[in-house]
């Protein structure tokens, strides 16, 4: 476990020193801070617009940081040969993958927390305490969504080039976000068996990122999620399980990979 933590710590340090990560973070922070200026677009629903914009920016920035960072976590170590001095130490390959993943999600946690705190400060004095606190549920779900995305990028990175991985991770994220579409494709009455089959494969195989989008409930407090607590627990459990499966497959492949 010491090796995993050492690799994770080093991964966070590296990710937070990457200009592209800082650029996305800085850009998102600027947009969040300036978001009240956009209230002229919808003066009567300033808070709705503010929350919608802020959560959207956090999710989008997190997604790009996550993919850009995730696709290079392992390939960069192989390309610049730093992996030689790590794997020649008493480090199992699964520890290396786990350390990289842990570093990746800790980086995301830091980014989401940082953007979240700033956004919370922007919203807090305009909203009721409950509305402001509700934002944290959104941040939490974005974090779990991004954790799946990090594991997905790591999974692809053990057998794809970073370039292909970028588009694969982005593509899966987009399709996975549209889980209602894949569900309707699977269950729709006018679909052929093949269409239903494809829908089922997409729906069950790809991560259901869409289930983590609770922004609608946060933006419109009058909307209710039935059994809200269960909904959150189920989706967090799903995220943990999905991540575990992806990492196990990634380790199996990486264990056989020459570096």
């Amino acid at each position, binding site marked *: 476990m010491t090796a995993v933590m*050492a690799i994770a710590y080093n991964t966070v340090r590296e990710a937070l020193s990457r200009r592209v990560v800082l650029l996305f973070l800085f850009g998102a922070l600027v947009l969040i801070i300036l978001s009240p200026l956009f209230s002229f677009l919808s003066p009567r629903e300033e808070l709705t617009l503010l929350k919608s914009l802020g959560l959207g920016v956090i999710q989008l920035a997190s997604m790009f940081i996550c993919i850009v960072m995730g696709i290079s976590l392992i390939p960069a170590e192989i390309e610049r040969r*730093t992996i030689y*001095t790590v*794997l*020649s*130490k008493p*480090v199992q390959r699964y520890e290396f993958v786990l350390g990289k993943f842990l570093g990746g999600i800790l980086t995301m946690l830091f980014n989401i927390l940082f953007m979240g705190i700033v956004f919370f400060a922007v919203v807090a004095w305009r909203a009721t305490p409950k509305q402001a606190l509700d934002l944290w549920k959104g941040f939490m779900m974005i974090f779990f969504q991004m954790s799946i995305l990090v594991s997905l990028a790591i999974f692809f990175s053990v057998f794809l080039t970073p370039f292909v991985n970028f588009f694969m991770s982005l593509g899966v994220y987009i399709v996975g976000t549209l889980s209602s579409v894949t569900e309707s494709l699977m269950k729709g009455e006018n679909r052929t068996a093949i269409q239903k089959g494809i829908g089922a494969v997409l729906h069950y195989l790809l991560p259901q990122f869409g289930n983590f989008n609770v922004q609608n409930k946060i933006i419109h407090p009058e909307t209710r999620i039935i059994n809200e607590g269960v909904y959150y627990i189920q989706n967090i459990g799903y995220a943990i399980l999905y991540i575990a499966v992806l990492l196990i497959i990634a380790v199996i492949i990486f264990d056989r990979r*020459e570096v």
Partner: protein
Amino acid sequence: MESAIKIEGLTKEYLNKTTGQMVRAVDDLHLEVYRGEIFGFLGPNGAGKTTTIKMLLGLIFPTKGDAWIFGKPIGDVSIKRQIAYLPESPYFYEYLTGRQVLDFYARLFGVPAGERKKKVDTLLDMVGLSRDGDKTLRNYSKGMLQRIGIAQALINDPELLFLDEPTSGLDPMARIEIRDLIIRLKQQGKTVFLSSHQLLEVELICDRVSILNRGKLLKAGKLDELLPSGRVEIVAENVSDDGVIAKIRDAGGVVQRQDGRIVVQQPDDASVNRVVDIIRSASGTIRSLTPQRRTLEELFVSTIEEVEKR
């Protein structure tokens, strides 16, 4: 003698993506390295040296064959507690300082925090980087990176060190320091597996060497066995008579006249006494008699050329 590394029929084949053909980077390699020796692993570029080291470290996998380190099969992670690796032109995390990078490697071995700091300071001092320990590695010169590479290789006080071109990029003084360090490691009972192009260096410090070319082992053995002393150079004065010189040539000597002296190269020990007798009987004065050993460079070049001609 107890073996540190034992290799039996190690073979590595790659698919050359350009030609679509299989290439043998290492071909049926058999080798044994003994505990406590400095073993020179020589060969031209592309001979398969780094591929062999990477297989021994479990970074790549053999197509065929087996190898053991301290009796345990390669791939057993526990042996990595006893070994160290310095890659050729090592790359490190350039955003870290020298101190941070050594701390990172110490963490991989699970060295406790208090001990880590002391260890890092000692190693920085040992490789002469105490003053530069807080600079980020992106500001290090090639020589400084090589020193950090050596320091990280010593972090676990290893029993066996794989050093791939350890003096590459270093200035002459630093080379001598590294050479001395390798000798000190041997004196402490460590085993060093040294891959190098610096043949003079290898000749100076290695107990045994092997020569690899196109993945095949061409020669392996003790330096004394591989570089036998056979030729003898005799320098003599007061020998100018053509008849005497003809007699020396008849005895197998190659004679050169130099400023009133003659320099005789005798191909073997056997005829040296005859030539000395000829010179002395002609009232010549023997100034020196030096056994000439073939250099490792000569052996290396002739071995490779011999194979390439076939």
